[in-house]
């Protein structure tokens, strides 16, 4: 059997992080093929339920990324999102989910390289903690 590969859900905002991912692609930058990208209009659109549903249905990790603070296409979407993540993250840790399972970042449309780095880092982190078991249905 082949070695376990982490499966990572990346939820990226349309205006910055998704464009950053696109730039990484068209620039032919190398990054781990473990992410599955879902494009959303803005990080403010991210319902924590999306993240939990991701874990529950078999993703080993979730990355959420939006525009840098101050750069959100909708002005304040990422500020509101930030408060949400600020509560979600410690809450997940509180119930016993590993801290690195769910991560957040800001990546702009010009930061293709940063996108590659973030994905590499998240993939490595999740490889280290191993397959997700908590909150995974049927695990």
């Amino acid at each position, binding site marked *: 059997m082949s070695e376990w590969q982490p499966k990572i859900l990346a939820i990226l905002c349309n205006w910055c992080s998704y464009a950053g991912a696109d730039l990484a692609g068209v620039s032919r930058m190398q990054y781990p093929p473990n992410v599955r990208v879902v494009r959303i209009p803005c990080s403010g659109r991210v*319902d*924590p*339920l*999306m993240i*939990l*549903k991701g874990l*529950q249905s078999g993703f080993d990790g979730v990355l959420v990324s939006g525009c840098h*603070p*101050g750069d959100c296409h909708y002005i*304040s979407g990422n*500020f*509101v999102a*930030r*408060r*949400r*993540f*600020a*509560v*979600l*993250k*410690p*809450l*997940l*840790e*509180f*119930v*016993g*989910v*590993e801290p690195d399972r769910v*991560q*957040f*970042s*800001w990546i702009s449309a010009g930061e293709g390289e940063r996108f590659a780095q*973030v994905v590499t*880092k*998240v993939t490595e982190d999740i490889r280290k903690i191993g397959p997700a078991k*908590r*909150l*995974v*249905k049927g695990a």
Partner: protein
Amino acid sequence: MVNELREAAGKLLDDGKVDLVIGWAKGSLPLASTPVFISSSDEADQLVFDSTCGNNLTVYFTKDNKKISRDRKKVGIFVKGCDSRSLVLNITEKQLKREDVTIIGVPCSGVIDTRKVRRKAEGREVLEYSQDGDTVTIKGKEFELSVPLEELLSNACLSCLRKDAEEYDLFIGEPRKFSGESDPYSDIEEYENLSADERWERMNEEYSKCIRCYACRNVCPSCYCNVCFVDQNDPQWIGKTPEITDTMIFHIIRNLHIAGRCVECGACERACPMDIRLLYLNRKVAKEVRERFGSDTGTDLDQKPAMADFREDENQDFIMG
């Protein structure tokens, strides 16, 4: 005190200041009083207030219950400290108008958790409950116990720092001020210090008891969406089974929905038929909200609820550098 309370309600009704008073009355069982709706002064003698008055009556301004208060222009409501914070929150969220409600504060020394009483009675049926200051007497067939109130109090009350309403039109007695000295979250800190495995084990043990009856949601004055996320079918984002991941996700999301909105009244925990220690999650969230955003839910009529607000220069240490 009970007399003052009845007189106050009667007078408000007689003077035409309100046309309905929401309060508590003696229930049909000894350990739980029941909400009561008084619309004329001669019914006012039904009103009571003691440590069995656990219901957060603000719930009657929300959800389907809105119809109770909607048809009347002016409603009077009795509140404990926590209930008054629910009311303030609902006013800041534009669920009702401050001028449409007459808030009557009552001095609260905590409400009981009926399960703690039953445990004391060791399974024997409790037929009588009475309170004298800090001592409670429980009677049943062939037994009588005298217990310090402290040992029967709802967990929410044990960590409560604002026992009396700070926003009111009338107060029965003398309201006590905010006692901000002690650390209300020491139990949460203890829990945080357990290993992740242990926390996970304990959460599993607790939440695997959940039967998804939603009593916790229904009694909560902060839970008032017309269609709750758990009732949405199309698309269905959340599993409705009592399977553990479905249940945990329900509770995590519910706690996020009431982040910065939960007043830690404990009504949910007292309503839970499965005896789940629900407040652990609520209070963890409340602690984060307080520490990170410096907001104390329901204490300020001019404050935006924390999760609807932001500061540009906020701490973002949890975001990848």
